[in-house]
């Protein structure tokens, strides 16, 4: 099956994060490049989902869903940056 991109995992990731994490930027442990998760390459199969850096192909994250449980591994990201809404004060 042909790969897709990080936009496609907004739904599964919503089980782990309280905000849309596809707009967060992650730093790849392989090459150091920083990009929104939506720009990552996503390989899905019956076994699970592998998220790879679009620059160097390092595995950034893995997702597995099985019945009433779901797992996420974040082995390839050394940092994640989120944008906060401007504070009212």
């Amino acid at each position, binding site marked *: 099956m042909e*790969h*897709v991109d990080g936009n496609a995992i907004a*739904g599964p990731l919503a089980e782990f994060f309280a905000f849309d994490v596809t707009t967060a930027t992650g730093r790849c442990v392989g090459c150091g490049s920083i990009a929104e998760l939506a720009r990552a390459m996503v390989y899905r199969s019956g076994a699970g989902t592998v998220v790879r850096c679009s620059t160097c192909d390092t595995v950034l994250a893995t997702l597995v869903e099985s019945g009433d449980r779901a797992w996420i591994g974040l082995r390839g990201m050394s940092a994640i940056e989120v944008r906060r809404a401007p504070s009212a004060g």
Partner: protein
Amino acid sequence: MSDATTSQVTALGAALQSVPRSGWHAATVAAVHRETPNASRLELDVDGWPGNAAGQHLDVRLTAPDGYTATRSYSIASSGSSTRVVLAVDKLPDGEVSPYLVDDVRAGDMLEVHGPLGAFFVWAPAAQTGDRRPVQLIAGGSGVVPLFAMASAHAEADDPTPFRLLYSVRTPDDVYFSEELRGLSDASAPLRLDFVYTRRTPDGWPAPAGRITREALEAAVIPAADRPRVYVCGSTGFVELVADWLVGLGHDPRSVRTERYGGT
């Protein structure tokens, strides 16, 4: 402690330990129309839908009688606060979900949907974002769906930002939202439409049918010098070809947002 109390405590513990699957909604199919020979337009009434931005998607989950589930993502063709959500679904020959949605689903049927999803591949009017850079939309096939939502939101807001849509499509019969697109290009919000026909052109079309070329792309998109924001949606092969050409033509990679839906 009585058995009844024990079971209540156990149930409470299980409830606290499991993560609620937020954002799932029951949707009723309100209407189904044939969009093209290979696609249907579905209008859904979604209970509790919070509204969505132009370009977002949702996940549809089908459950078989034996409990087997299949989930697929579909871009939303509508935007705004309405609980009526419009999809346009292309039938994949060996798909698990799309043949059901295109050929079998009827008004009154129920679906489970999760969304709205994705905050990356979205557009909002300049009045909200303050961004007045021109916008270039580039669609391959059914990739036009989220871009149609953006162009509609642009017209709805009477937004002055220049918009241009380049739509690569097999034949004139395969154009999604054909009438609506013509209407949008006549609206007061500026939208210019360009088509590339890959299999068959309308009569009298100046170019032969064929895949988009780098030269055709360059001729039909807002030049890099005008610093457009670019949204590209289509099959993975189409998106990656176009995105590489755009960068080669001098577009800033950070201004090019892409959404790949996989194989053709």
